[in-house]
């Protein structure tokens, strides 16, 4: 049953069905959620798996390939999407604007389809299709509310994303002109470090960085993610931006290691460090819940790029051979779970309090205790405190930084952790304040809206405790550059 194609086809079919079902599309998630969880789980146990679509092997046809990296993110995506779907079904049920609810479901499945396609695809054009689908669905999700501010945010997102699409496409065209194939495995074999290839690599990378909102292309993210409805924000922050970073990882660690070197590592590490510091400082300056969580995404994505300078460091000094790369993967997985949990919790808190201004949140912990608790647990993982997947990720990245005597990157991570504690302590303090603000009245919310974020937050925590199986999973067929580094 472990067929990668099914993991793309099923959400795609659900997407088409949702177009016709309208608001009743909400019901689909009770089937697709469990089904996708089972299918991804089976795939994770069967990897490595290769499926040439229609029986045609590359370069004639295209193939879907699942290795440990893909399988880990497929499972995480299925978990996040299933829980967000259950949350959204309740969240939109009471929505006074039926058109917004009806529009959400096709977009929801489009995102799911696109992410799975990106994780399984090994053909640059395939990935481009996935990215475009992801972008268009993402932009539409931001615009769901239809307020002037969110429309402006969606437009800005669209501009950045289209810029990214254009550079990605030009880069891919250059590669096709040079090598007559877009299959990543074939490209890796044929790769030569000439001008056309370097230019293509640079263009594609810039495009991906823009779509992933990596500093200095981050400006579109905070208003877009903060303005979307809570379930949409959760998908956007946990999955959509991350998909672009994952392609970046695939590209450099699987295909382009011969082009890499100290310059690339310093550049990527530098961008990552700037993202961590800038995003955190901006998060501290916000005084509403959702913008804080959105800026936190800008900061957290930065950690992933630190894997570029740190991978391959300290060969032999540690018992794990691909520690920094593994650390980054753990970071991406736990951030996906924790950030989705946090946006869902923020959505529940907003529903209860009617606002997300920090100075109006006093007493809210009493109105929605479980959601508040989920917010705190997710915050623990994002700060990189134990016990959580975030902590384990940081532990790996930090030990490698010290083993490689690159204490500068370690300093970025430690300072980033402290800044995260500062920007997350503010909302947590606001929730803990016992005295309600003047005239504050709290609405009752359904239990699902409190339990869904808790489930994801606990998953982020468990990733740091039951980490042995995830660790083994992501080592399956991992790229050589993850061990040796991009030197």
């Amino acid at each position, binding site marked *: 049953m472990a067929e990668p194609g099914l993991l793309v086809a099923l959400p795609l079919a659900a997407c088409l069905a949702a177009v016709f079902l309208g608001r009743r599309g909400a019901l689909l998630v009770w089937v697709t959620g469990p089904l996708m969880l089972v299918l991804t789980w089976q795939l994770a146990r069967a990897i490595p798996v290769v499926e040439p679509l229609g029986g045609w092997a590359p370069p004639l046809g295209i193939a879907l390939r699942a290795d440990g990296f893909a399988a880990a993110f497929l499972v995480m995506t299925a978990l996040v999407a299933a829980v967000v779907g259950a949350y959204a079904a309740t969240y939109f049920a009471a929505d006074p604007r039926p058109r917004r609810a009806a529009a959400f479901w096709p977009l929801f499945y489009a995102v799911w389809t696109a992410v799975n396609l990106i994780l399984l695809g090994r053909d640059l054009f395939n990935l481009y299709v996935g990215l475009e689908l992801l972008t268009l669905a993402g932009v539409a999700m931001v615009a769901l509310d239809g307020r002037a501010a969110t429309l402006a945010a969606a437009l800005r997102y669209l501009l950045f994303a289209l810029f990214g699409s254009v550079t990605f496409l030009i880069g891919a065209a250059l590669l096709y002109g040079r090598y007559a194939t877009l299959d990543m495995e074939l490209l890796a074999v044929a790769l030569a470090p000439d001008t056309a290839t370097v230019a293509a690599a640079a263009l594609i990378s810039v495009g991906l960085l823009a779509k992933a909102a990596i500093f200095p292309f981050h400006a579109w993210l905070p208003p877009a993610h903060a303005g979307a409805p809570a379930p949409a924000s959760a998908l956007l922050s946990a999955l959509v931006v991350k998909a672009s970073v994952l392609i970046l990882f695939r590209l450099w660690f699987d295909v382009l290691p011969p082009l890499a070197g100290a310059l690339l590592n310093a550049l990527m590490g530098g961008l990552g460090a700037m993202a961590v510091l800038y995003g955190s400082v901006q998060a501290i300056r916000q005084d509403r819940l959702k913008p804080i969580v959105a800026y936190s995404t800008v900061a957290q994505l930065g950690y992933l790029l630190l894997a570029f300078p740190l991978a391959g460091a*300290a060969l032999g*000094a*540690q*018992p*794990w051979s691909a520690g920094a790369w593994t650390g980054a993967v753990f970071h991406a997985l736990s951030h996906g779970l924790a950030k989705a949990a946090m946006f869902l919790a923020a959505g529940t808190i907003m529903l209860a309090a009617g606002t997300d201004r920090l100075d109006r949140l006093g007493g809210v912990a009493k109105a929605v205790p479980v959601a508040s608790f989920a917010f705190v647990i997710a915050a*623990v993982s994002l700060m990189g*405190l*134990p*016990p959580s997947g975030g*902590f*384990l990720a940081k*532990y790996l990245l*930090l*030990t*490698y*930084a*010290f*083993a490689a005597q690159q204490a500068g990157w*370690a300093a970025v991570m*430690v300072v980033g*952790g*402290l800044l995260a*504690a500062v920007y997350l*302590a503010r909302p947590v*303090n606001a929730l*803990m*304040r*016992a*005295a309600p603000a003047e005239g504050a009245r709290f609405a009752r919310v359904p239990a699902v809206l409190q339990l869904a974020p808790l489930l994801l937050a606990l998953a982020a925590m468990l990733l*740091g*405790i039951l*980490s*042995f199986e995830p*660790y083994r999973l992501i080592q399956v067929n991992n790229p050589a550059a993850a061990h040796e580094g991009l030197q």
Partner: protein
Amino acid sequence: MNAWLPVLTLLTSLVPALVIFRIPEDRRTPRAVVNLAGAGAKLALVALMLAGVARGEVYETRLVLMPELYLLLRVDALCLLFLTLSAFLWLLTTVYAMGYFGHAPNQSRFFGFFSLCVAATTGVALSGTLITFFIFYEFLTLSTWPLVTHKGDEKSISAGRTYLAYTLGGSALLLVGMVWLEGLTGPIEFAVRDQLLEVEPATLTAIFALLVAGLGVKAALVPLHGWLPAAMVAPAPVSALLHAVAVVKAGAFGIIRVVYDVYGFDLVQALGVGLPLMAVASVTILYGSMRALFQIDLKKRLAYSTVSQVSYIVLGAALAGPAATVGGLVHLVHQGVMKITMFFCAGALAERMGITRVDQLDGAGRAMPLTMGAFSVAALGMIGVPPLAGFVSKWQLGLGALQAGETWVIFVLAGSSVLNAAYFLPLVYRAWFLPPAAEAEPGREAVAMLVWPAVVTAAAVLLMGLFAGFALSPLSWAELIVARVYGG
């Protein structure tokens, strides 16, 4: 069975915590039953393991995180010293807290986090690897914070902010120290010797400073102690927890682990890091006592006294000789029991007679003889009057200082004892020998649940001193630990 004991011990606090969170606010009896069942089960398990470890058994459980990186729960003699203390005091503090809060709101949240805190402390005691220790140590930070801010008013939130700022700063230092060290050596297990041989001495010294500074925040070493006096706005049971059962103890215990098990006596001596640590501990002992002298607020005076007293433990570790080690270890227990007595009493005084300041204590002994009697025993113990528990600690430390050839430490101990007397004796004097202020209403003892825990701990202060030579006394157990460390 042996592999399950450490896990079960952890669960005796963790499961009650999770259950209590779900108990509705007004169901006081089920909450009390769950709480006391957990505390009782923990004491039983501890007794079982004490017998086993005395026979030479070791209990271990491990959970593999990644190849060669594992969480290890390991019961050895040192672990049990801390575990017994926290299990015993947890039971008493739970009883006390039930009496203290009566029908106050948010009790399920309070007792939930309280049990979570004890679970974290248990984990700290049980940790067999550096990363396990760090995980529980941080878990302790996080689970204590809701207790410090329990009242939810601006003052508590602000104290909580101070607490987090200090402790998270400390954990950042500890984290850097840990990952730096493990980046060079791979994961560190406490029971494995000679893991640091290949690391350069200068690096080891820097890492030692980072680790001790990180742990020193919770152990309230000067100048990292600021959070402790600020946190006294928390309710009395929380103060008891911070000062005696969990938080400062976890810091001191961590320093002992670093000195004995990560570095080892020989390496500490070879690197010459013992003397600076001794100096910091001595300064803390004297500075804390000095500040205590000038506090009018009763709980603040007790808080500064803790700053001073906990560094006796650190001093014992830094002196790194057999007798001094025994002194430091035994003081871990003695200080906990003495200080919790005083906080129990301070809470009872505040609840019953509204006494929060030193000058309100006049005549309190007549109104509340049991409470003030317990308080006086603990105060005399702190000063080091024989035959109370504090005397045993100071005697051992003094002996250790002579053994290590650091005669000046004797003067630190003597000076501190004089200061202890100077800030505690006036309290005892006021309570028993001065007449109550004219406008004070005649009080009487608080409810039994606030009084008897203090009486029990005060009795323990007396017994631990009188029967120090008895086979199951903290002193004998500390001697057993040291004998095993020295391989004799």
